């Protein structure tokens, strides 16, 4: 019952407390008062009259006679235009010393939109990064992870995308970030004048672990609201593996049977319900999601990247500071790249095929074999491709990048060596002289 105070906690394990209560709903919030002060908690499991609550500030200081008061409503965050330029924690409290935001209070973690109400994505999100725009075009409403190992500059990549992407609003959700990374992201956006179109929900490694779980839900709830008001929103999340690890930690304290490497059996469903929020609303705005997912031990078959790969519409691999052309994939690219410029697909396929051949030649070279004429051409090509297209610092619009592609090809090969359809060659192959 609401406004009844409970004073008998049956069990305390990690950040999860268990008590007997009635008339409580799943996801409902409660307030827990202990000798350490007052913290919010969220109902995460109800079994008969036994209620499990996750205490946001952790269960430290809570004793079996601490007071629990149910608030009768689920987790909410405020929403208004005033969110822009601000930084909050996972529970929606300001962490930038600014004032609390007034505004409509919106529920987080609601259901996603029924497929029949969505529309087929058909607009590209321009980023100025050729490895994305040309080879794996990002599309409005797409959900894509950035698979990366620990040392890669994934936050730098996110920051550049935040800066360059042609969207209205950026929501940046940080989970388990190092404090330095948090400051880097904030300062970078501020310095480059992008903070004013950004809302940040930040959880750092030293914050209570349960707040980490709220970051994607809070970010996506706010994104959904902006999208229904006609805004094109890009949600950047980093790092989803920390989010999954937080779930794992809580599942273990709740003594759930783990399925794979200690992760809860519903990991797939949990990740999916977040990613499925990506959407293009008919006649209104949209949500596009890019989520860094670090791969422990560079292992794609680790449960987090593996489950993610089957949910998302492709993935970017970040390796050696570059977006890998192999393995990286935007599944939605063909929705848009047929309409950008007629040579887009040709350049995209040809350049990657030739780059694959270049890699083989590199192997031969490292074995000390003679380099044939053809190998020499490939070597020249591969080097130009890496420095002028793959390098993450390259920032050119799609059309310029396509022109550059033709120029590189013509510089390295004869037309018929590229396998490009004769029609295309006649139209686009740069004339010598």
């Amino acid at each position, binding site marked *: 019952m609401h406004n009844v105070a409970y004073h008998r906690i049956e069990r305390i394990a990690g950040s999860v407390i268990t008590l007997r209560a009635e008339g409580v709903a799943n996801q409902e919030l409660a307030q827990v008062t202990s000798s350490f002060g007052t913290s919010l908690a969220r109902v995460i499991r109800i079994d008969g009259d036994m209620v499990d609550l996750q205490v946001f500030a952790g269960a430290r200081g809570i004793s079996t006679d601490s007071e629990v008061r149910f608030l009768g409503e689920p987790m909410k965050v405020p929403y208004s235009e005033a969110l822009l330029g601000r930084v909050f924690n996972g529970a929606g409290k300001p962490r930038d010393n600014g004032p609390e935001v007034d505004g409509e209070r919106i529920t987080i973690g609601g259901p996603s939109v029924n497929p029949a109400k969505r529309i087929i994505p058909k607009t590209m999100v321009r980023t100025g990064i050729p490895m994305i725009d040309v080879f794996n075009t990002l599309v409005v409403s*797409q959900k894509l992870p950035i698979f990366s190992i620990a040392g890669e500059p994934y936050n730098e990549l996110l920051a550049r995308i935040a800066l360059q992407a042609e969207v209205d609003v950026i929501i940046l959700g940080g989970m388990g970030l190092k404090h330095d990374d948090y400051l880097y992201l904030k300062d970078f956006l501020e310095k480059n004048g992008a903070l004013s179109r950004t809302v940040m929900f930040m959880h750092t490694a030293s914050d209570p672990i349960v707040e980490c779980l709220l970051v994607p839900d809070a970010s996506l709830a706010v994104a959904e609201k902006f999208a229904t008001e006609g805004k094109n929103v890009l949600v950047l999340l980093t790092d989803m593996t920390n989010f999954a690890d937080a779930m794992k930690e809580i599942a273990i304290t709740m003594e759930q049977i783990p399925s794979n490497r200690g992760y809860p059996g519903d990991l797939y469903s949990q990740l999916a319900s977040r990613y499925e929020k990506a959407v293009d609303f008919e006649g209104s705005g949209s949500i596009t999601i890019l989520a860094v997912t670090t791969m422990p031990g560079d292992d794609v078959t680790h449960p987090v990247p593996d489950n993610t790969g089957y949910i998302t519409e492709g993935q970017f691999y970040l390796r050696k500071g570059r977006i890998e052309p192999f393995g990286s994939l935007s599944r*939605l690219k063909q929705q848009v790249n*047929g309409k950008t410029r007629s040579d887009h697909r040709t350049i995209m396929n040809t350049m990657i095929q030739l780059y*694959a051949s270049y890699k083989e030649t590199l192997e*031969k070279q490292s*074995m000390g074999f003679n380099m*044939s004429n*053809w190998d020499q051409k490939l070597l020249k090509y591969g080097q130009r491709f890496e420095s002028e297209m793959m390098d993450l610092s390259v920032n050119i619009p799609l059309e310029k990048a396509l022109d550059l592609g033709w120029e590189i090809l013509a510089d390295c090969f004869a037309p018929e060596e590229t396998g490009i359809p004769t029609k295309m060659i006649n139209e686009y192959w740069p004339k010598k002289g």
Partner: protein
Amino acid sequence: MKALPRDKKWAFTPVAKVGDVVVAGDTLGTVPEGVFTHRIMVPFRLLGKWTVESVAAAGEHVVEDVVAKLKNDKGETQDVTMVQTWPVKMPIKAFEERLRPSKPLTMQQRIIDTFFPVMQGGTFCTPGPFGAGKTVLQQLMSRYADVDIVILAACGERAGEVVETLREFPELIDPRTGKSLMERTLIICNTSSMPVAAREASVYTGVTLAEYYRQMGLNVLLLADSTSRWAQALREMSGRLEEIPGEEAFPAYLESVIAAFYERGGVVRLKDGSTGSVTICGSVSPAGGNFEEPVTQATLKVVGAFLGLSRERSDQRRFPAIHPLDSWSKYEGIIDSKKVAEARHILANGVDVNNMMKVVGEEGTSIDDFVIYLKSEYLDAVYLQQDAYNEIDAACSAERQKYVFDKVYTILKTPMKFSEKDVARTFFLKLTQSTKDWNRVKFDSQEFKDLEQSIFASVKEVSANA
């Protein structure tokens, strides 16, 4: 999407007459539905013989109207409406006998129809890591497969892809009927964020509907995407029931559940003598693309063809990324299997030469071996690979496959002489280019003939027999 409207009128035509003796699955009347004739059948759950007491006259009815009354020798009566209900986990067996698959089911994909064919009533699977092309392949199959009905059981897949199918299909024209593809396509959709029990049931709903249409003498293709999501749903449910887990925490009965599912495919002779078939294609998404895992292994034991998608090939943009050496099919295809075996042999030899070159270098390889390698790459580029996004190349009819295979085979069999490796390579690069151009023009058009002529003229120049 709305459910079937209960107030829509359908034009019923009686087939059975008063006094006829019928059994489960017999046709009582018909109703036209889109591109085919829907049979109104004696409910499958009825046992024994029944006599038709009355049957509605030809005319318009809503689906819940009683269109016939039946009576059995125990005096029990039964009203029949146009609605059949059936528990999805039980196979419908109201047919005369099961037959062996005997007719090829063409998909207009060269690598499948020629190298790893599928038959009406057969079963096959398309395992592969994510991003290797399962979804595109399924869309190609649902578009071009030579069947009457395609059922897409999407189990825990991306919401976006489902939208694409829902929105795009009504606009696509079925090349066989000239009508919207949607009229022959049924989509059962449970996206990843829907409840796990719904995901578990979706493949069964799919196969039950497939059996239902088979009872009408139709050929049905069921695409289950993905059976791994389905197996995971089984695992989640079994975990909640606290059953003792087997390998990788899957329930111990996983293998028999998978076998029983694929067993529901097949060709049957119905009681009226006509035949119908259910062909089942299960896509499998094994963790990290490693086929040594319970779902893939259990599936491989029971299917008739294995179209394994490979990351290596998709990285090289060699689509469809079906692995030409690892895949297999136990079915008979549209092209002389001896010639196909020879072509596969060339592919295997080419791979051997390529591996050897990695050890001894190009300079340590004889020019004859080098030409074998180039020929295998040529076959791969112009025949195995097919561009799903080129209007013409996307679909290659059986007739065109027979014609083109014959020509490519002739080229492969032509002994060739080259002065040096670079000359050979340049020749094959050009030949590949013009043969790909050939794939991209209309079959039997003037352009097609011209290109063919120039291809063979260039082959003649290097032929050792000339």
